[in-house]
Every structure is written in C-alpha cells, then in structure tokens.
C-alpha cells in the first residue's frame, strides 16, 4: 500500500512516501526548489518521492494532508474578529492567499497528482506531529509531547501512543503558544521568524538569564503542570504583521534590534532569559505528562522539539528514561506523520521498523556525479572506499575544510554526514574560519560535533544516543581539547554516529581518531548562509567553488579547490539567497 504524505502552505513544505508502513523517501521542497523554507505545494518533492518509489501518482492508494485547512481558517477568522480593527493589515495580507490557494487544498492536490483518483485524507496538525515521532520511534508504547507555533488551534498537545494508535488528551490553544513566544523574542532580537530561532538558542549561553523572573511574572503565567497563558498585551502576532509591540519594547527598554546590527550584553541576556523560560515550560510539561501517563518513554515533535538544549534537560531532569525526537520535528515532518496516521491508525495496519537514520532524500551514483563533473570541466581523482576514508581523514587532520557529499540526503534541518562540511575540532581558530570564510554567518554561532557513538559518553556527559543532533550535552572536563565544537558554556550539540546508520561516515571519524586520538569531527551543514542545504552534485560544486572550502568529496571523487577552473557564468551567492 502506497501512501503519500504532504505538508505545505505554511513553511518548510515536504512530501513523504510510505510503502507498507515504511518511509521509502521524504524530502523538503526547499532542497529542490533552492528557496529556503519554501512553503509552496511541494511539486518537486512529490515527483522525487514517487520516482524513488518507482511509481506514478495513479499507483497511490491514499494521500494525506498534514492539517485541517478549514479549522485553521476558522481560527484566523476568530482572531480577526477578536482583534478588530487592529487586524486589518493582517486580514488584507492573508485573505488573498487563502482565497486563491489555501482553501482549495483538495483541488490543488488532485491537479498536481493527475491521474490520482483515490481518497485525500486530513489529519489534525498536532496529530501529524505526534504520528511523525511515535510511529518511527522504537517504542511500542510512549507518551507524546508536541509543541510548536500553532497548528489549527492547538499550539501544544500531549497524549499516548500505543501500537498503531495515538490518543491525544490535552492541548494548549492559540494565542497562547510557546513556539510563538520564542519566535517573538527571535523577532525582537533581530532574527528571522520561523527560521532563525536556533540562533537565539546559540546566543543564550553568552548571556545571563536576568529577565526570567520578570518574564514569568508579567508575560508568561505558568502553572506547575506546564500549562500557561501569555499576556497578549505584549504581542502583536495575533493581529499584526510583527510579533511584538510597543509594550514589549517598553518592557525590555528599547525597540527590536535591527537585523545585522551589533549585539550587546543586553541581547545576550534577553536570549538567555527566553531560553531559560522555554526550558522551564518544557520541563514542567514533561514532568506533568509523566505524572499523567506513568510512562518512562517520551516522543517529541513540533518546532520547539528542535530546541536541543531543552531536550537535553528533559532526558536529564525528568523521570523519562528514554526520549525520541523526530529529526524533522518541524512542519516538514508532518508529511511523514500524516502518512503514518493514514496507514497505521486509520488503516489499522501494524507498524514497520523504527528509524535508525534520516537518510531519506535523493542520492546520486558515481556515474551521475562524474557526468556532472566532466560537464563542468572539474578536475578530480577517483578513490576507492578505503581511500575516501583515509584521504579525507588525513586532510581534515591537516586543517583542511572538506565538503562531504555521500549517499542519500538527510530529511530534516540537520546535516548528518550526507551533506556536511567537515573540519578539525581541535583547532581553536576553526570556528572563526568556518563562520567567516566558509559559511559567511554570524561569529557567535557554535559548531556541532559528530562523535563515534561508542565513544560519546567518554567525551560528553551523555549516556544515550543522539543520532539526529537533537541533544545538547557538556563536554567532559578532561576532554576540552575540541574548542571549535565547545560552546562558551562547555556544551555541545552532538550527533552520535553508528556504523549501522552511516558506515562510511563512521569509518571516516574512526580514521580521524586513529590519526589524532580524537573520535570527533566538526559537522556543519553543507550550505552558505541563507541557502538550503545542497542536494545535487551541482549544488555541492557551486557551494564549494563559491566559498573557501579546501576540498570536496563527492561520492568517490576528490576535488581540490586549487585545481579547479573558475566557475562559468557565476553569480554572487549573496544576491541569490536572502540572509536568514
């Protein structure tokens, strides 16, 4: 049975193909359209997943859509009524898009999937999130927590998954939203909403959480059970085109920071404060859910589940013993969730195997890579598997920055060794080099380590796997020789790598350890600021040539920058991508 899951029209649209309960392929539209956080109908991603499954639209048995558009529309109308006349600007901007597109989801799907004639099924937004994490987790039974900006009405929910069924018990409703609260601070700190929330998380360790008590007293009314209400006096996201208003600015003693301007202790402290508040809410929610369900396993999804600092605290500081976070925890993962919901819950089908990796995107074989490189006039050497590992590890140990393009692309926002930039974490200058000369991004942003799973607890204060780079742990005191992946508070957002999930990447890190004694490499996404992670050999080659990367490893092909001819008809990437 083939089920296609689709998520789109808000941000990060994506498609996933489920065959007999197993995800055959899943891909975000942005990777193929090259438009960051692309929200349009994922026509390219649908085409790709169907091709990967070797079928056409006519062979699908069902199509699932990740939310309920009419409930969302009802929420919007209610909001316009409640905030009249201030909501006029928002109404005028949103209505044409709704009337033209968002109210006609079934027609759009039928048009894009001709000649598909089967059912189109809709799941609630938070049910899609819940299904996206529970059905691919290794747990037969688990508590589920979903937290995001907003779906239809719900902004957070919890329940229990058992076998092929999920029951959601309770929810927090719009406008009270932890995701939107965090986004409001993201906006106030001068970063892009729905895109740069992770920068606030990265900024937080530089500051002191001096505003926590004030925020808790005045802005967030938080109960012991993790439920909360926001004081909407400070926000404008319910009626306006911005997230915060004058009252919020007065509260923090100044207007929102202008993007790309200098940051001071003030911004650091505000970031530290909202991060702390976010952690406190998630921790209280998790403790309450444990109390209600008495289960020791927890699955999490929704944009807030990408807050790996909060996730790390959930596993350390609540009674939950095991945690599974969906790697595409944001709305893209809703495509996987709704497909599973349709197949497992509605279709009452047994569950397939748990996910062990997130390599669900396109891959290119050596013939395709060579065809591209020859066409581009690139100079390269072809290596064996063993030489790819040996040479790349040696180059990293010698201080080179490597573009690493292997196998299938990752699903979700993190590069996990399929489309990564790799470097030596021992070099204290490497962080600045990568930030300034290669990624062209803000200097404060930390880099993440990939570590051999069997050595993780030796190097980091962690005793579970973090295969999707969604947990933060402290670097052990005796192991602080990896400054480029150690944040100012000695934490690191790590990926644990197993041979089962990623044999070549595992061997590469193993070889690096043999050369240096360190089983850790820097792993950052293969892109420049504002660009979606590379997908094709063409994307990878362009990114390699436009930045100061030293080498590129494309499958079995090794390219050295110095040997490459200049790019033909190149354009400045700064004009091509909007900064995030």
């Amino acid at each position, binding site marked *: 049975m083939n089920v296609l899951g689709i998520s789109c029209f808000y941000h990060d649209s994506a498609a996933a193909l489920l065959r007999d309960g197993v995800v055959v392929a899943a891909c975000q539209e942005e990777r193929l359209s090259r438009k960051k956080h692309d929200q349009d109908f994922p026509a390219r991603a649908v085409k790709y997943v169907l091709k990967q499954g070797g079928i056409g639209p006519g062979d699908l048995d069902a199509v699932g859509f990740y939310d*309920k*558009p*009419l*409930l969302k529309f*009802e929420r919007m*109308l*209610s*909001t*316009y*009524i*409640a*905030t*009249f*006349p201030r*909501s*006029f600007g928002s*109404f*005028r901007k949103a*209505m*044409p898009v709704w009337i033209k597109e968002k109210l006609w*989801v*079934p027609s759009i799907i039928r048009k894009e999937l001709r000649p598909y004639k089967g*059912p189109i*099924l*809709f*799941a609630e937004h938070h049910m899609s999130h819940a299904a996206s994490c529970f059905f691919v987790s290794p747990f037969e039974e688990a508590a589920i927590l979903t937290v995001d900006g907003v779906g239809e009405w*719900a902004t957070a*929910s919890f*329940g229990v998954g058992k076998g092929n069924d999920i029951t*959601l*018990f*309770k*929810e*927090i*409703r*719009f*406008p*009270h939203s932890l995701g939107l609260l965090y986004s409001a601070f993201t906006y106030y700190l001068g970063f892009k909403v729905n895109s740069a929330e992770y920068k606030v998380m990265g900024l937080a360790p530089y500051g002191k959480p001096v505003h926590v008590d004030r925020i808790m007293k005045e802005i967030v*009314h938080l*109960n012991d*059970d993790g*439920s*909360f*209400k926001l*004081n*909407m006096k400070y926000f404008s996201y*319910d009626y306006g085109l911005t997230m915060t208003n004058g009252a919020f600015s007065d509260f923090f003693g100044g207007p929102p920071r202008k993007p790309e301007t200098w940051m001071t202790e003030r911004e650091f402290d505000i970031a530290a404060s909202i991060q702390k508040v976010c952690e406190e809410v998630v921790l209280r929610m998790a403790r309450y859910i444990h109390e209600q369900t008495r289960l020791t396993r927890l699955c999490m999804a929704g944009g807030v589940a990408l807050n790996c600092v909060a996730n790390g605290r959930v596993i350390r500081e609540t009674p939950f013993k095991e945690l599974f976070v969906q790697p595409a925890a944001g709305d893209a993962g809703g495509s996987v969730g709704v497909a599973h919901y*349709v197949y497992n*819950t*509605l279709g009452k089908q047994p569950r397939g195997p748990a996910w062990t990796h997130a390599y669900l995107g396109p891959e290119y074989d050596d013939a395709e890579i060579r065809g591209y490189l020859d066409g581009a006039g690139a100079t390269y050497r072809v290596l064996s598997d063993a030489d790819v590992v040996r040479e790349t590890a040696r180059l990293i140990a010698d201080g080179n920055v490597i573009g690493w393009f292997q196998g299938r692309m990752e699903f979700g926002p993190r590069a996990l060794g399929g489309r990564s930039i790799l470097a030596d974490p021992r070099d204290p200058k490497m962080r600045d080099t990568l930030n300034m000369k290669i990624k062209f991004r803000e200097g404060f942003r930390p880099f993440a380590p990939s570590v051999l799973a069997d050595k993780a607890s030796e190097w980091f204060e962690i005793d579970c796997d973090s295969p999707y780079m969604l947990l933060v742990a402290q670097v052990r005191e005796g192991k602080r020789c990896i400054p480029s992946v150690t944040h100012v508070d000695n934490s690191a957002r790590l990926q644990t790598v197993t041979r089962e999930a990623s044999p070549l990447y595992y061997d590469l890190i193993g070889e690096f350890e043999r050369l240096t004694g360190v089983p850790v490499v820097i792993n950052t996404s293969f892109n420049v600021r504002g660009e979606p992670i590379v997908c094709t050999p063409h994307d990878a080659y362009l990114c390699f040539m436009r930045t100061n990367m030293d080498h590129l490893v494309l499958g079995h092909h090794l390219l050295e920058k110095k040997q490459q001819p200049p790019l033909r008809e190149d354009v400045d990437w700064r004009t091509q991508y909007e900064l995030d």
Partner: protein
Amino acid sequence: MNLTEYVSRLGARLAHLPTHTKVLLAFATSVLLVELAFRRFGPRSKAYARWTKGVEAVGAVWTAVLLSIVYLVSVGPVSVFMKLTRKDLLDRAAGSDPTFWKAHEPNPLGALAAARHQF
C-alpha cells in the same frame, strides 16, 4: 436574424448606452485587446512584463478596496457584537486557573469520517 442585422441591432443598443458606460466598455475592450495582442505576439516581451505588472498593481488596489469593505461589513459587526456580549474568541483574559490545559476533543464523526473532511 442574419449577422448584419444582429450587428446593427447591437450597434444601436450600444449607441443608446449612457456616456460613462460607453467609456467603461471601451476601456475594458481595449484592455482585453491589448492583453490578447501581447499573448499572441509578444508573450515574453519586456513590454508585456511591464503591462502585467501595471495591471497587477491596479488589481492589488482593487483587492485592497474590496477586502476593506468585506472587513468592515463582515468582521466589524460580529466583533462589535462579541465585545458587547463580552465574549473573547481567543480566551486572552488572564486567569488564575490551576491549569490551562484544555481537553483535546475527538471529532464526533469518528476518526476515519473526520479524516475525509478539512474540519
């Protein structure tokens, strides 16, 4: 009725139209003819791109005008009624409830039937 007769009757009817209607009709016909001419003879031309941009700008103004009317006529009165009856659709009032969790209400249609709908 033959074609000549039909055309002459149509001409007579048009001639009797008020002047402002004639002007509007002539304007609409010209816009249609220009659009058709561009589509036929220069679909990729710069002039057509500029023309489209201009027409879209006019469309944006009209959309704004129409939406303003819809907003005032439909959203406004309901909002006033809600305010008079002291009902807040967003539940924004600060409260001292021991919990703000709300029960997740399953769709009364049942899971499968509910999934067939967008609500």
